[in-house]
């Protein structure tokens, strides 16, 4: 070997050794400080969460929090199956909670450590806790419609003569079938179990008038705000983030469909105790309220409502005057039926 090359080799080797040593040192140091890995949905929502919930907890407890995104049901299952769980707290969709609990993917929650006295009963579950309420509603562009003149029910959303315009609906089974049945006048408190045959007949009527079948949660809000759609099913908090910036978008609460996102601790988490402590903190009145102010999904803690200003409360699905006009999504029904019904929806869509 050429001597110069040999010198280069030894230099590289030396550097490599030093690097490995350093990493080992850093790792052992990190292992001593307690660390929590938490997962949420990213974007503006994650920033709000970090600021209002994570940072104060780090300071209070002297721990380090690593926040990742997005949650993945598949990853949770893979981690639990492989007995190598790297996530300590994950925000999951309601149907993931139900199905995951049946599969035994989550740690049972210790409600001695988590003070649930001020949570609504519906948010408290054996191995998951509802943490913020979302809602899927009718949203519209205010340049085309306005407060006094817009579809106020799914029946009116279906009425393309009275309310002409480019429409968007979610490419999913959830929400879509509920909306169709309500459009046909099915009573709001007796939707489940869903009459699928009837729902598809009603969907046939709106099909030719749907411009966009959206898939990503942010998509309808963005398209309404930028004038690509006039009318769409959309998530309230996403619409709010555009309305707040002055975009011409608004929502109708009537016949909205709401549900909880759940916090879960994947089974086998190495920081179970700290995770319980974190849940108790995250759902206590103050952080729960501050998070809702930044990203208006309904807080679960009853005492947090006092801390929220009225203009934000108007945008929360949990505020009574909004909530009483909506229906709760039956997560259990969807955990059992979603795969089968979604296949039918896809089949119906390509026809």
């Amino acid at each position, binding site marked *: 070997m050429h001597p110069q090359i040999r010198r280069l080799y030894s230099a590289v080797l030396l550097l490599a050794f030093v690097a490995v040593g350093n990493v080992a040192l850093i790792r052992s140091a990190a292992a001593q400080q307690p660390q929590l890995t938490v997962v949420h949905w990213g974007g503006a929502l994650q920033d709000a969460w970090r600021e209002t919930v994570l940072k104060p907890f780090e300071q209070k407890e002297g721990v380090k929090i690593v926040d990742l995104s997005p949650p*993945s*049901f*598949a990853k949770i*299952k893979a981690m639990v199956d492989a007995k190598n769980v790297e996530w300590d707290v994950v925000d999951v969709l309601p149907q993931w909670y139900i*199905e995951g609990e049946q*599969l035994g993917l989550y740690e049972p929650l210790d409600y001695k450590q988590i003070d649930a006295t001020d949570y609504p009963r519906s948010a408290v579950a054996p191995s998951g806790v509802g943490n913020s309420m979302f809602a899927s509603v009718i949203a519209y562009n205010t340049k085309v419609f306005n407060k006094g003149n817009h579809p106020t029910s799914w029946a009116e959303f279906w009425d393309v003569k009275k309310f002409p315009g*480019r429409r968007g609906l979610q*490419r999913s089974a959830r929400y879509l079938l509920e909306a169709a049945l309500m459009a046909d006048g099915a009573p709001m408190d007796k939707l489940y179990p869903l009459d699928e045959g009837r729902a598809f007949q009603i969907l046939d009527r709106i099909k030719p008038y*749907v*411009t*966009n*079948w959206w*898939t*990503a949660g942010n*998509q309808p809000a*963005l*398209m309404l705000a*930028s*004038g*690509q759609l006039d009318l769409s099913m959309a998530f309230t908090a996403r619409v709010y983030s555009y309305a707040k910036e002055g975009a011409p978008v608004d929502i109708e609460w009537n016949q909205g469909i709401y549900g909880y996102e759940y916090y879960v601790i994947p089974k086998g988490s190495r920081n179970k105790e700290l995770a319980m402590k974190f849940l108790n903190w995250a759902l206590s009145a103050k952080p729960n309220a501050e998070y809702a102010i930044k990203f208006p999904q309904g807080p679960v803690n009853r005492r947090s409502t006092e801390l929220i200003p009225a203009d934000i409360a108007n945008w929360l699905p949990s505020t009574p005057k909004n909530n009483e006009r909506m229906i709760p999504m039956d997560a259990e029904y969807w955990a059992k039926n*979603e*795969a089968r019904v*979604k*296949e039918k929806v*896809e*089949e119906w*869509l*390509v026809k």
Partner: protein
Amino acid sequence: MSWPRKSRRPGRVAHRGVKGRNRREAGPFWQTRFAVVPLLVFILAGFYLPLFKLLSLSLFDPTFTTAHFRRLLTVPVYAIALWTTLKISFLVTAGCLLLGYPVAYLLVHTPQHLRQYLLVCILLPFWTSVLVRAYAWMVLLQDGGPVMQSLRSVLGNAAPKLMFNLNGVLIGMVHYLLPFMIFALASVMRNIDVRYLQAAESLGGGPLRTWWHIYLPLSVPGIRSGCILVFVMALGFFLTPALLGSRQESTIPMMIGEQIEDFLNWGFAAALSITLLAVSFIVLAPTYRFLRLGFAPK
């Protein structure tokens, strides 16, 4: 190692070379051959083992079952999606070739100092994520957007819709995959000996005729590898069709993602993946013969 220049069957010549004249130069048999072992192990463990696991996942759930494949065959939506996936991939490959060929030609036959700017133009979008690009196209192609407005001012109501349909999907995907086609073509075009073209011209061939009889046949290996590359990559797209397509552009990768992420039905997702893989093997089968030649140096 340098290949004998005039050989048409370099594989054989190289083999003879190792055994005979070049033996001492290349080292004893075991040294040269065993150098391949780590790579072979890597390929086996990294590619074939997971593929085998995927196959077993689609057939055992947990005991042997053909349920996943039966569902795939009996529920028509999957056959439709498979056809859509193949159709989109074909059209995207054709679009990339049509647009990429002139660009690759320009890239290769441009003076050095201009080539750099051209390269930057091609590479800049290459570094942007597929999601950002899809959203950017949505802004450009929307109803009141710049593209539709100028189209409408020229064509009036005959202007075709460019978003939320097949057109949108094709525009988005061709845009994403074009650089791959251009580089595959350019790498071959760069090695075309210009003296052949000069010879053709000196014998009275016009530019079009020279291109057709000399340049095009010499660039065929690039066309082939570019098309295979783009086609195979196009088979895996799910974001662009979901964002820029209509309800009819549902592709197999979209369904695989949903089965893995939302329904935890990994067995069925594996069956969908295996089917897509098998179908793409069948579709690409006619190119295998050429592919082997493609590795041969000139």
